């Protein structure tokens, strides 16, 4: 636990250093594409301070000065399976973004979608030392959370206190300075596979980049695709990615659950490829140009040239109707959405006051998804696009860049994590002497 603290605190320090230097890179390592944004932080916002103009969640403080996307290589299901290939892809993206920004970046915040994220809800209770809750009490409350046995080869990616309760008052965001006896806290912890994390860290290190933060891509999509009141009232963000489908549930502006389904757009492409006996590239092209999930009578008459280069005239001149293509795609999309439904049910999504579901990610652009999804996930569904941030090029405003844009919000306004709070006194070696003195004074 302690070395996790150390590494996470080191990353936080790095992030602070990067913000002081003013430039930071954001890297979304996905299965189908790697996106790199470069942010510049300005101290002077240029916006007038006044009524109705708040901090805008820190958005006014940064500007995207570089953006680049490249086809991802060596990544499957959001996990790097060929490190050299992944490293090359990251280099391509970073170099292109640097070229656009015309600045060198040394610090990077990365997000990853794979690694089988698993959510845990933690709870801890302590008696307040004295009347007023102070930092030490909060620290002790956080430390008293009983950490479940999350397995050996797992690492904690996020550990965020989502709720504090003092005696019988719950829903406190900041209990410090309040008067009470029993301080309880709820914490949401997300773990991922250590090997996946380490592969990513290794790739970034090979690219001469300093890691300034790590995040789950499901969380990042939720940050950017959900609007503020959706985050406040309770909603789920479903990021239909290339290799994985990320799922995050928010309430009271805190993520309380995140998960990922190891199915995504590439599986749809593979289905098309297998079903129509075409190459993956052709299948991908057919999916993006002609794909859909709701067939109409018109679609039977719309014939799509498949094409091919085998030399066999018959094979190369095949056509397929759009209805057939939809017939291949729809079962897979349904399967993904049903899996999502299962996970949402398992997480207890139906108990939330508002049950808004936002679909985002590249897969959300499939035509007809807005009619298919309500049948499986229920009402209250919208297709979400990421927030507009300053300086973002038009090409990367699409739904596929939800997690990259979310990273920029994460970089400028990170959620307080466990390791951002004070360490409890009894875990600190140099403070134990003070405790000994106190014990001596109390007992003699």
């Amino acid at each position, binding site marked *: 636990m302690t070395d996790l603290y150390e590494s996470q605190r080191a990353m936080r320090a790095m992030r602070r250093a990067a913000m002081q230097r003013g430039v930071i890179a954001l890297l979304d390592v996905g299965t189908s594409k790697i996106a790199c944004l470069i942010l510049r932080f300005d101290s002077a916002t240029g916006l007038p301070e006044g009524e109705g103009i708040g901090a805008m969640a820190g958005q006014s403080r940064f500007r995207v000065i570089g953006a680049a996307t490249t086809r991802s290589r060596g990544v499957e299901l959001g996990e790097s399976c060929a490190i050299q290939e992944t490293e090359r*892809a990251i*280099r391509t993206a*970073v*170099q292109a973004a*640097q070229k656009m920004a015309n*600045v*060198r970046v040394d610090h990077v915040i990365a997000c990853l979608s794979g690694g089988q994220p698993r959510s845990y809800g933690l709870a801890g209770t302590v008696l307040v030392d004295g009347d007023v809750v102070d930092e030490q009490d909060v620290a002790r409350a956080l430390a008293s959370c009983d950490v479940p046995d999350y397995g050996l080869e797992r690492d904690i990616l996020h550990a965020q206190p989502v709720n504090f309760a003092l005696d019988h008052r719950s829903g406190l965001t900041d209990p410090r300075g309040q008067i009470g006896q029993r301080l309880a806290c709820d914490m949401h912890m997300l773990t991922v596979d250590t090997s996946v994390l380490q592969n990513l860290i290794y790739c970034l290190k090979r690219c*001469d980049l300093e890691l300034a933060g790590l995040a789950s891509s499901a969380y990042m999509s939720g940050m950017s695709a959900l609007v503020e009141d959706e985050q406040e009232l309770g909603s789920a963000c479903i990021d239909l990615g290339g290799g994985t489908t990320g799922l995050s549930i928010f309430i009271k502006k805190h993520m309380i659950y995140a998960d990922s389904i190891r199915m995504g757009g590439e599986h749809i492409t593979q289905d098309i490829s297998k079903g129509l006996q075409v190459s993956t590239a052709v299948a991908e092209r057919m999916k993006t140009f002609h794909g859909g999930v709701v067939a109409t009578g018109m679609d039977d008459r719309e014939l799509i040239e498949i094409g091919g280069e085998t030399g066999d005239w018959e094979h190369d001149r095949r056509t397929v109707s759009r209805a057939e293509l939809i017939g291949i795609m729809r079962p897979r999309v349904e399967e993904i959405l049903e899996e999502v439904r299962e996970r949402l049910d398992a997480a207890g999504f139906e108990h939330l006051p508002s049950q808004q579901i936002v679909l985002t990610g590249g897969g959300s652009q499939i035509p007809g998804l807005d009619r298919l999804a309500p049948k499986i996930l229920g009402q209250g569904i919208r297709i979400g696009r990421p927030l507009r941030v300053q300086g973002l090029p038009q090409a990367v405003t699409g739904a596929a860049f939800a997690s990259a844009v979310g990273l920029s919000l994460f970089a400028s306004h990170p959620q307080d994590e466990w390791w951002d709070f004070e360490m409890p006194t009894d875990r600190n070696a140099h403070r134990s002497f003070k405790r000994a003195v106190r014990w001596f004074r109390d007992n003699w």
Partner: protein
Amino acid sequence: MRDPAPSRLAYRMNRLMLTPRFRTFLRYGLPVLIVASIGAFWASDTDRREDASDRIAELRRQIQERPEFMVRMMAVEDVTETVAVDIRSILAIDFPQSSFDLDLDAIRAAVETLDAVESAAVQIRGGGVLSIDVTERVPAIIWREAEGLSLLDRDGHRVSTVAMRSDRSDLPLIVGQGAHDAVPEALNLIALSAPIAPRLRGLLRVGERRWDLVLDRDQRIQLPESDPTTALKKVIALDGAQDLLARDIAAIDFRNPRRPVLRLTTGAIDAMTDIELTETRDTLR
């Protein structure tokens, strides 16, 4: 298909080129470094260095000896003939000469070493003329010493020598060792002694500290070391009131202004003695 990914080296080079400090170095540091190293390599050979310095010297000489820069004659102005001859002989410049080779400050210093010259202004005028503008010293007093007679200006600086006193009988005479150091004081005293000017023969410096006014009939006015002007004014006033100097007096001793003493001549003392004897006899009788 070509791999779009940059190689690790290319990626690092790209990042290096984006480093501001490195770019600054490339833009400014590297050219300077290259030029400096080429220069250093070139200069490392002695022959080449000497050859270059010779060529530069030759070029310099060619430019300096252009007719525009040559000085052909010297004009000494506002000066008596003897001083002009002196100046020409002391400078001894071979004309024509390049103006770059003339050190005007040195020429001025050389001219000002002459006794008769108080100050000099040296300039090169158009048309290749070295013009020396001289302010001469004006003799104000004659100083007689063992070697002979000197003319001094009003500051006591030697102007020239003179063979005989009668050559410059218009100037007052001072005598004595160290007299030239106190010429302004002497001139002041001479000015004060205007009422007795016809009788004044000269001033004598005594012990390099005070003055004696020497009048004809061997009369002397011995003045104190400090504030001699006041003492002389008193003497002149006494003379004006009581005709003191016309009497048979050898010296008026004002060395101690609080206690002036009259020294009588021998004849006067005899006459005094006679008078006293006569008076004594009359009383006794």
